[in-house]
């Protein structure tokens, strides 16, 4: 019995993050880890081996002594997505319907080549097997499967919530649905706006017009836009590579 196969116009989900509203409180990071069943840090994990699918980074501008907080997650690059073209076994696909860059831990070999390709450092490797203290596995989110060690994982705009919204819409027999990722819901200052970039009326498309993107010149077509009234942030974002300090690094 051939179900009617009316195709829904493909969506291109994207985000606009207002850096002037981000207070660096980190609520989005904790909410994101709770939603995606990311385990609490292994005792030996550091900021270079931990898994923070959404990373809030504090940046300082020496000249104006300005400080800003930048939530950096997978930018769901649209134009020849660096991680997709390099994955040897198609564990990374750009979903035609939603524009989200899908990462399949079931097929991922753990060769980590995609992590060298990603200029946004938005991919994380499971160096350890996920462990939860006794009893805490009852607090796992049924919508997301915990990943095993040896695979790469990244932000996928909270597919667990999208699936839930899809199922609810399916009950009324419709394919249209709306959903908000965990970080958008968790942000106390509503700094993150999420929506379909293909739909010109959505506020994400409107706000995306006069905003900037990081590493735009690399030509990977990221779909997460940033806005700020502070000019030094806009110039910082236009840079590729960090300015070398007098003596580099932190100690």
């Amino acid at each position, binding site marked *: 019995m051939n179900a009617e196969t009316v195709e829904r116009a493909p969506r291109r989900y994207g985000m606009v993050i207002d850096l002037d509203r981000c207070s660096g409180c980190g609520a989005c990071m904790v909410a994101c880890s*709770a939603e995606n069943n990311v385990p609490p840090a292994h005792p030996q994990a550091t900021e270079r081996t931990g898994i923070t699918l959404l990373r809030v980074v504090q940046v300082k501008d020496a000249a104006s002594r300005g400080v800003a907080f930048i939530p950096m997650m997978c930018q769901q690059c649209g134009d020849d997505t660096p991680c997709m073209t390099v994955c040897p076994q198609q564990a990374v696909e750009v979903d035609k319907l939603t524009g989200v860059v899908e990462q399949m831990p079931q097929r991922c070999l753990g060769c980590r080549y995609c992590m060298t390709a990603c200029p946004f450092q938005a991919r994380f490797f499971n160096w350890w097997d996920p462990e939860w203290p006794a009893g805490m596995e009852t607090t796992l989110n*049924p919508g997301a499967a915990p990943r*095993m060690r040896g695979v790469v994982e990244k932000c996928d705009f909270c597919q667990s919530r999208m699936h839930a919204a899809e199922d609810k819409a399916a009950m009324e027999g419709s394919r249209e649905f709306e959903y908000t990722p965990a970080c958008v*819901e968790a942000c106390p200052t509503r700094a993150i706006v999420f929506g379909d970039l293909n739909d010109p009326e959505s506020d994400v498309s409107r706000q995306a017009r006069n905003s900037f993107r990081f590493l735009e010149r690399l030509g990977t077509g990221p779909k997460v836009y940033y806005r700020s009234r502070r000019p030094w942030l806009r110039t910082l974002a236009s840079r590729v590579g960090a300015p070398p300090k007098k003596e580099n690094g*932190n100690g």
Partner: protein
Amino acid sequence: MTGTRRNLLAFGGGAAAAVAFTPIPWKLLDDVSIWTQNWSWIPPVPRGEITVKHSACTMCGAGCGVQAHCVGGQPFGLAPVAGHPLSHGGLCALAYGAHQMPYHARRLRKGLSRGAEVAPDVALAHAVEILRDARDARRVVAVLDERPGRMVSAMYARLLGGLPGSVYLTPPAPERATAGILSGWAGRPAGFDFEKARTILSIGTPLLDGFGAAGALLALWANREDRVRFLHAEPRQSHTAALADRWIAIRPGSEAAFALGLAGVLVRDGLAKAPAPYGAFSLEEAARRTGLRPDTILAVAHELAGRGPALVIGGGDPVSGPLPRDAEQSIAALNVLLGSEAVCPRHPLPFERPATPLLDVPDGTISVLIADAASNGCALPEAVLRRKLANNAQIIRLSAFQTTAARRADVVVPVAAPSEALEEVTAPACNARAAWGLAPPLVERPEGVYTVPEVVARLAEGCQMPAPGSIDEASEAIQALGRGSTFEFGDASIWTDSEDSGQLEFAALPEIRLEEPSLADGFPLTLMPAGWRGAAAAIPLPPLTTKLYQESELRPGAREARVHPATARDLGLARQSRATAETPYGSAAVSLRFDESVPPGVVEVAAHEDDAARVFALCGDTCWRSAPARLRRS
């Protein structure tokens, strides 16, 4: 012999070739790969009915509303409640990990008697016995309650009623400092109405980083456009300094001087609405002590007076402790001088009992201390508490987790962790309107673990005292008031009081004495414990907050010391990553990080969970806010 061996080899080779045509290798390959996708030691995902339960977050005292998505009755994710009277649809980072607290690695399900594990009822019996001896020997008993103003606090007060000379204490908290002093001066509870204020000056307290209902304040800050201006005075460029419209970098320890300087300007230019406190500073004196240019202090003062109702908030930092008494009083005095409508009276809750601040109690007087389990997210160093206790004092601690404080207590009675028992929720102490609500449990308690009201009842019964009552007395008392409005969210409800139309009259401002900061020789730097709300509190941090401090550099983690690159270069530590911080009271190994936002001459050592005790020990037992220190290569 070789003939048979060779045939054997030939047969083996043939068999091996044939295996390729059977499904064995290919199916094994596929199955082993599937096995790697479903390892048995990766926990399976719970399956069941998805429901939503409403409750409140009890990680600190702010009472933010929370809706929990549950599968089969078990919460797996928390979300804010839009339109909640206290949290206005915002939550802070601690809330989103709160549903995992009952399963924290350091959860305590048994009693502790002098560190040894005992059955819960044995621990409770031991506590009752201590209390009874104290009553018979007429020794001073005290209750330390980090969240006074609840019905449970009233039950504690009733329990203490039967014990002569007992005292009901509350540790210092940023929300209670300035509001508490103003209430004292006005003779009736006073609070701040942030919605009314058009200029908010916070001195030394992280207003936009975990003050009161963090989510609500951040929402106010984000949607302020030009209605409200946030000014922040702090030596360090903290989160709040970064977000404030204007950051005034004062020298460490010069908060009082800054406040008195502002007061001096208000009085001199006739902008003050009340007589100036004795000892208000001249502009030059204030500028000298704070290291600011005189016109900065002038501009801030005029802005405070000129731009509509202003608020000046002190209270110190949840981790590096309260400001000294003189600073708190001078900040409170500023509010009196400005006389803004944002400072308004507040109806007390019917069952509210005044609590004595811990620091006002004379030293060495308490011989039995009962420490309540609730946490307000602020640190209380061991030394500060021990100074108030007599030398053979005994501590009865109600705790759901194994913290350093619990290990040092004489008896620990295991109580319910956050979201395991019905808990009361009150508005932050600085709110203009009181509020009271109930946070129903999301998870059922493990057996053998008590709730706090049960423990208080058993203590009272053990000492043959009248029953201290129960939580639903509070709801009747509030119904009896017949004012305010109630909000229902699922089976959680919260009642907020109505405006108190009265006016606040302040008696004459007391005399504010300012001590000269004493610089110990040989210790050129100033050491300040640093952290964020909940980092060094009575209950440990939710497990998922490791994303903030351990797996990223958003928050300082344990053993971390930040110092200005210039200071490091002067001390020859430019390339060091490990160093030792020394103060007159002790030394500790730290990992150095260089950070321009830290003022030169200051070394900030992160006080973090169990490691906090070590850091506070560095500050000695005076006021733990800062200590003279030096940094040595380790």
